[in-house]
Every structure is written in C-alpha cells, then in structure tokens.
C-alpha cells in the first residue's frame, strides 16, 4: 500500500467536549472577568476611576475606548 504514504491528511481524533467544558466554563469566566477589568472596568468600590487610571496606557494602546 505504497499509495497510503500520499495521504496528506492529518486526522487526529478530537478532545471530547465533556473534558473541555468544565475548564471552558470556569476558566473562560475568570478570563473574561480579567479581560473586562483590563479593557473596560472603571472603578473599584471606594476608589473612583482607579482601574481606568491604572490600565490607562494599555487600554489606549490595545485599541479599547478609554476616555
């Protein structure tokens, strides 16, 4: 079966969804919260605009609306 060597296809089986899902749910949620703080969050309780001010340069340079 020398023609089998022509097979350019790489057909790996995939990771089952039920193995990915818990990580995607909890990890994904935490990562989205982090993204929110870096890109859009403004204030912390008691400290108005502190998040905005701290991430100021990164937020501008990553292209998110700042002020």
């Amino acid at each position, binding site marked *: 079966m020398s023609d089998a060597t022509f097979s350019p296809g790489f057909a790996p089986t*995939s*990771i089952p969804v039920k193995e990915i899902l818990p990580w*995607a749910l909890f990890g994904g949620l935490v990562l989205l919260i982090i993204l929110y703080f870096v890109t859009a969050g403004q204030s912390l309780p008691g400290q108005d605009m502190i998040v905005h001010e*701290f991430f100021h340069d990164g937020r501008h*340079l990553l292209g998110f609306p700042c002020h």
Partner: protein
Amino acid sequence: MMGKLLMRGLIVGLLAGILAFPIARIFGGPPVESAIAIEEQARTAAGEAGEEPMVSRDVQRTVGLGAGLLAYGAAIGGILTLVTAFAVGRVGSISPRATAATVAGLGFISVVLVPGLIYPANPPAVGNPETIGYRTQMFGLTLLFSLAAMVLAVAAARRLSASFGSWNAAVAAAIGYLAVVAVIRLVMPYVNEVPDVFPAIVLWQFRVASLLIQAALWSVIAVGIGVLAEREFSLRGFGASRVKLAHR
C-alpha cells in the same frame, strides 16, 4: 490534561505580554506622550488648572502598561487555548499546529482587526469623557457581532465543505463574513471626536503602534499554542493514525 494545557496556554499568553511591552514602549510611547502634551497645552491655553492624576504618568507608562499587557495576553492565551483544544480534529483534516494558527488568525480578524477598523484606536486627548459609556457599548456590540459572524461563518464552512469541497466552502464563508462586516459598518454609528487641531501624524503613529502591539501579541500566542497543541495531541496518541498510514 486539559487543566495542564490551559495553564501552559496562560503562560504562553504571559510571554506574549512580556514581548509586547517593549513594542508598546518603543512604538506606542512617543505618540501617547505627544498626545498628552497636546492635551496639557490645550488645557493651559483654556486657562484650566492641570489635573493631578490618581495614578502618576510614571506608573501608567510602566507598571500599568505592563500589567495591562500581561493580563490581556494571559486572557487571550487562555481563551485561544480552550478554543484550539475544541477545534483540533473538528475543522477538517489539518494538524493541531495549523488549527491553532487558524483559530488565532480568525480570532484576530474578528476580535481585533474588524472592530478596530470600525472604531479605531485613539490616543489620549482624543475622545470626549462624557461619551465613554456610549463608545464602549458601540465597540463591544461591534466586537460581539463580528465574533458571532465569524463563528457562524466557520460553522457554515464546515457544513458546506462536505458537498462543495473545503476550498469553495471557505471562500463562501469568507464572503459571508465580509458581507456581515459591511452591514455592521453601515448600521453602527460613526464616532468622530478627534479635535480639529490634533496632528494627523500622531494619530497615524498611534494607530499603527496599536495594531503592531496586537499583531505581535496574537502571533506569539498563535505560535506558542501551536507548539502546545502538537505536543498535547501526540501525547494523546491522536497523530498515530498518520504514522500508521505512512508505514503500512
């Protein structure tokens, strides 16, 4: 194994953030400083007192910028790892490495490039603080529409590839995505808050720097996750079918 993979994906994202820092300083620093100087000038000319920032400029341009890039890199690294883990073996017969590159490439187009073309990055001194909520909502909506259109386009390409072949399916999906982008452009409101006297060259430098930083960050993550995915899938023995085929 999924937990370990995600952890490594986060580390890849942190590395991308570290690499993006000097690029941000070298290319992004000068236009940011120019913009702030222009802002100060305008304020002095108007007779307003300079405001004392809560976080000093020194902290903003060093620790603040670094922390922002690290956190953003880690978040994008983690999310792309999860999506790649799901996508390998489910988007046609391409290698884990190529899958990672495809996921990152399509992610970059739909999450960074398209929203950034519709609502381009602005330096300090550009943008009315009173409309920040509105602009954030419009940007977020654009990002969501664009990402949703990309997910639908990929799903459509998968379905069409059985009857029309993967190339034709991919071309059709790309046309579909671009058509949605055109509609988003028509529907979403234009925002122009660039002051008349703001130098065009500073705006251009800033926007190029912004794109450069994002492109560098996403590219490093794409390559890094590619390495992780190849390893993960060979450890699982998922590539074994190819080896068997080749030696049969």
